[in-house]
């Protein structure tokens, strides 16, 4: 094995790219869970976003339109989840699973004609001055806009949750929907909005995979990234900045194992490709062994205002 063939600068740069979809999806799910809803359909919304964004990107030649459309598709799919769980009071775990199954079916149905096509991809955005810095410039400051957008979104979500009235209400709904309802907040409406935000983020995340990271469409290409995003929310103890850490750690593992495969490590390829999932399990175990701190108290509970 030749470790010297792994370039640390490129490694960190590609780490940021591979972490971005998980970061976006996990951030959306964080907001959903903060409002007290567990949406297990992230994988389904991601893959639908991936194909919808890809299709629009290919047909219009504009990846930006692709991203916008992917966010809309993700949000629409999540709206189905919202209606079922919030208005028709269905079980959130089962509905989320159903959403994933529907999303996988829908995406492969739409995606058939798009197999093997290359899509237009986002231009790299060289940040002036900073990107000219040695090493750090290549590593951190010459990425596509979505990478910066995702990091900015972390800051926005953090600030909104922590410092604004809207964030306070959202958290109140997630901690105790009965108390929030008694105070006159529209629990269902707030939750639907959170679910839509989560869906849009998952859609963007999917489109990032199909438009930037790969950039191609293959069936089932998200390969469990949505589930990993769910795990990262737990890992982050429902705190936005820890989502960033979790996603980048995970991105690092993914990139490193790919690099090790390419460098011809003596570890079997299969063990390497298992490693992201195994590490996710390991991280979940470590986090849960410390106790489940930070989970919103009303997470996954059904709200029905009687009278």
């Amino acid at each position, binding site marked *: 094995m030749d470790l010297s063939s792994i370039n640390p600068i490129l490694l960190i740069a590609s780490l940021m790219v591979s972490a971005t979809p998980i970061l976006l999806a996990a951030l959306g799910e964080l907001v959903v869970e903060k409002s007290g809803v567990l949406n297990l359909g992230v994988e389904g919304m991601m893959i639908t976003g991936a194909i919808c964004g890809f299709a629009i990107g290919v047909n219009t030649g504009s990846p930006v339109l692709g991203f916008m459309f992917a966010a809309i598709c993700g949000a629409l799919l999540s709206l189905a989840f919202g209606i079922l769980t919030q208005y028709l009071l269905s079980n959130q775990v089962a509905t989320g699973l159903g959403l994933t199954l529907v999303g996988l079916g829908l995406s492969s149905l739409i995606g058939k004609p798009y197999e093997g096509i290359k899509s237009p991809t986002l231009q790299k955005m060289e940040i002036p001055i900073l990107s000219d810095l040695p090493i750090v410039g290549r590593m951190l400051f010459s990425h596509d806009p979505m990478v910066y957008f995702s990091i900015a979104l972390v800051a926005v979500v953090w600030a909104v949750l922590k410092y604004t009235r809207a964030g306070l209400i959202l958290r109140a709904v997630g901690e105790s929907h009965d108390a929030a309802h008694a105070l006159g907040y529209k629990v269902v409406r707030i939750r639907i909005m959170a679910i839509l935000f989560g869906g849009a983020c998952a859609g963007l995340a999917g489109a990032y995979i199909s438009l930037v990271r790969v950039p191609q469409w293959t069936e089932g290409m998200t390969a469990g990234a949505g589930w990993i995003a769910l795990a990262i929310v737990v890992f982050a103890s429902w705190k936005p900045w820890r989502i960033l850490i979790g996603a980048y750690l995970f991105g690092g593992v993914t990139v490193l194992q790919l690099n090790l495969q390419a460098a011809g490590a003596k570890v079997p390829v299969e063990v390497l490709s298992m490693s992201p999932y195994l590490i996710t399990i390991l991280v979940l175990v470590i986090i*849960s062994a410390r106790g489940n701190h930070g989970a919103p108290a009303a997470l996954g509970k059904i709200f029905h205002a009687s*009278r």
Partner: protein
Amino acid sequence: MIRLEKRAQPSKLWTLATPFVAVVLTMIVGGIMFAMLGSDPFEAIRIIFWDPLFSEQFAAYSRPQLLVKAGPLILIAIGISMGFKAGIWNIGAEGQYIIGAICGAGMGLAFYPAESFIIFPLMILAGALGGWAWAMIPAVLKVRFGTNEILVSLMLVYVAEAFLASVSSGLLKNPDGMGFPGSRNLQQYPAAANLEIFQGSGMHWGVLTAFLAVIFAYVLLSRHMLGFQIRLTGEAPRAAKFAGVNPARIVFLCLGMAGALAGMAGMFEVAGPAGQITIDFNSGYGFTAIIVAFLGRLHPVGILLAGLLMALTYIGGELASLMLGIPGAAIQLFQGMLLFFLLATDVFINFRIRLSKTEAV
């Protein structure tokens, strides 16, 4: 203003009726989808739900297929439904199915080319143990560390798939396979083959096991203390604790049974209809079984019927893609929609709709 009012008791009528309502709704929306794909919706629905059973041209082939496809679905769904009843969400049955298949086939291939009646039972045992062991991972982690079993069991599906890729081109690869990935074909190894019990009926040993599992689960849930404890844990966890139910024991039991049944299903599939371990012999039964479990109301008899219906959509779907060129993914979407509509209509079990003139505050 439409308002939902909680019923004093869950409606028995709606509990039975919602699966049928959901099927009808799925047919309507699915029909619209088929029309959008450019096929005649009535013809498509007829080909999916009617022709596999009653068409003179296809029924002879597809009727046995019904049991072949329903067998694993029922077997897996029975296992996971116990967990769902107790609030333990094992959604990684696909992984347990794969590992069961690998262990079962591995046991059989280890004896190749010996001939003995004991080989096949040993393979069943190995398959069940393999699936059981794979399900014990989330069980132990949940009991010991409180780790979320949904995420762990699902992550293990991806691990199992990577493992399957490894053994099918490595450990279990057919030495006479001229370099192609995939194991020896167990169908051509009589001692290890999962053959039809009645020629031409589609009834192989796995289907028989599925039927036995239905009976076993029915007795367990309705007549045995353990079944009562499973239901109690799901419906009132605190009450269950006060009644002296050991939650760890329920977790081990539910996940263990689900794993063993899924593992057996995998073994029967690989020794029978699939024939060999290949990188993609698994056809997503572990996930479809989730739909089967819900559609069957988590009730053994319901699961039996739901499994047959879901098998019908598989076969009908193949037929529809052959006759009308409807893509296979459309059927997958169709099955997903079925679960969605079922969950949507389930609201009527516990609530009734009231129209009130004044707006509810």
